[in-house]
């Protein structure tokens, strides 16, 4: 199987800090790969590098077989790579529905269109309804994200990315700050992305229960390097992981 995302010997230093220090990894299509590690391990920097927010000092990033090192986020989105953020990244002044509409216009290359009003494009409205219903947000479509619960905001963030019809999604701590019920819902959503919608997921997460439940593969980072990788049950047994991660 050809990997959907592959990263080869990626490096990014901030002055003295070796945030990402020679990381290589592959993510297979329609799988969930979780990256864990203590704070400052370089997990978010890795997501930033893969999603095009920052450029690496050296190393390559491949997506769907193409060398996409240094591509802008907007270009990567068009190739099918979407990304969600640690702090939910939505449009606070737009309604929930318009949050999704803006994404749908963009992916249909109609973000600059002047032909019709933005709220009267039939196909966009139908797709927006489908997406919001999938994420249980349709009833809240006229609210602004500021009126939503923390869990719903994060779901909206994922819904926007999902509306882009991506081949792969990067999620940065999708369950951070959530209640147990919200976590449950999010876990189900992420599983649904893989199982029903065929999306490849690469995520950073602190909650090990979540990670062990959903992941096909777990990658452990420490001080910018990958120190272990394997199936969840294998990672549970690796002593090195417990030392750096659990402080045992």
């Amino acid at each position, binding site marked *: 199987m050809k990997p959907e995302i592959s990263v080869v010997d990626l490096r990014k230093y*901030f002055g003295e800090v070796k*945030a990402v220090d020679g990381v290589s990894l592959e993510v297979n299509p329609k799988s969930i790969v979780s990256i864990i590690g203590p704070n*400052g391990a*370089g997990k*978010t*920097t890795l997501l*930033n590098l893969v999603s095009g*927010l*920052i450029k690496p000092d050296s190393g390559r990033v491949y997506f769907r077989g193409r060398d996409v090192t240094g591509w802008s986020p907007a270009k990567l989105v068009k190739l099918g790579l979407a990304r969600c953020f640690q702090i939910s990244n939505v449009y606070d002044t737009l309604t929930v529905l318009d949050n999704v509409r803006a994404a749908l216009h963009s992916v249909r290359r109609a973000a600059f269109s002047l032909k019709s009003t933005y709220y009267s494009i039939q196909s966009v409205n139908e797709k927006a309804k489908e997406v919001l219903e999938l994420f249980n947000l349709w009833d809240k479509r006229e609210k602004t994200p500021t009126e939503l619960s923390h869990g719903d905001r994060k779901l909206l963030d994922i819904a926007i990315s999902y509306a882009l019809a991506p081949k792969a999604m990067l999620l940065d701590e999708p369950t951070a700050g959530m209640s147990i019920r919200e976590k449950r819902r999010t876990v189900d959503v992420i599983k649904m992305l893989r199982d029903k919608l065929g999306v490849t997921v690469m995520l950073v997460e602190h909650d090990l229960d979540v990670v062990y439940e959903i992941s096909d593969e777990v990658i452990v980072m420490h001080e910018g390097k990958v120190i272990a990788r394997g199936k969840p049950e294998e990672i549970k047994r690796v002593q090195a992981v417990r030392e750096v991660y659990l402080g045992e």
Partner: protein
Amino acid sequence: MIPIELLIAQTINGLVYASILFLVSSGLTMIYGIMNILNLAHGSLYMLGAYFAITIIMKLAGGSPWGYLAAFILAPTAVMAVGAAIEVGLLKPIYGKPEEYQLLLTFGLILIFDEVVKLIWGPAYINFPNPGRFLGSIEVAGFEFPVYRLLLIALGFSVAWLLWFLLSKTTLGKKMRAAAADREIVSALGVSVPLLFTGAFMLGSFLSGLGGVAAGPLYTASPGMGIDIIVNSFAVIVIGGMGSILGALVGSLIVGLTRAYAIVIYPAIELALVYLIMVIVLLVRPVGLFGKPEEVRR
């Protein structure tokens, strides 16, 4: 070819203008660097410095040499008080609000100060004699150098050195720079950030007022002088890199000398040339010559 006398004269003029530009733009860039505030009315403080000087020199001292000396101390001090009032009364309430607010508010202040100056001193240009007549000139290698102008150049470089010393060698300066980097850490260390901000704003205001006192007798005073200097100061700090004192010095020299030479070579493009340099710098190196590129971390 330009005669050598003219070239030397324009170099002196350019350096004098650079000195004055530095007095204004160093404060502007320092306040931005520490407080993340761009005070559009910073040029109005320069204008106030010039007008305060007029009153001190002509009205209170009757044009005597002591009047000039007094003006160089009292006028910037008065401007500093105005600066303190602005920072405490008007800017503090809008810290943390969108950046547009401080731009709009300080823009409003420009309009207010321009009209206040017209109300008190009248709308006409005020020409007042420069203290050069008390100081004379010195002769070097057959060329005359007016002492007042040489003193102004020395003032500019001295202030540059003092600022560098203050910001990089003293504890206060280190606190200021730390405040620029991370407000929370600094207040956790027991430093009063609001007080530090007021102090930085007052220092910047003082310098701008000082620039006005120096410039008033040289270029005449008018209600439009504030906007003229602020636009040039923008060019300076954009070229030099916002927040950088060294950048303000180099930017001032570039703008000052460019204007001085352009005015004898091809006067029509004097001002345009400054904006042209600014645009080119922004295109080639958006953070300016000495600005630090910001990068997304973690």
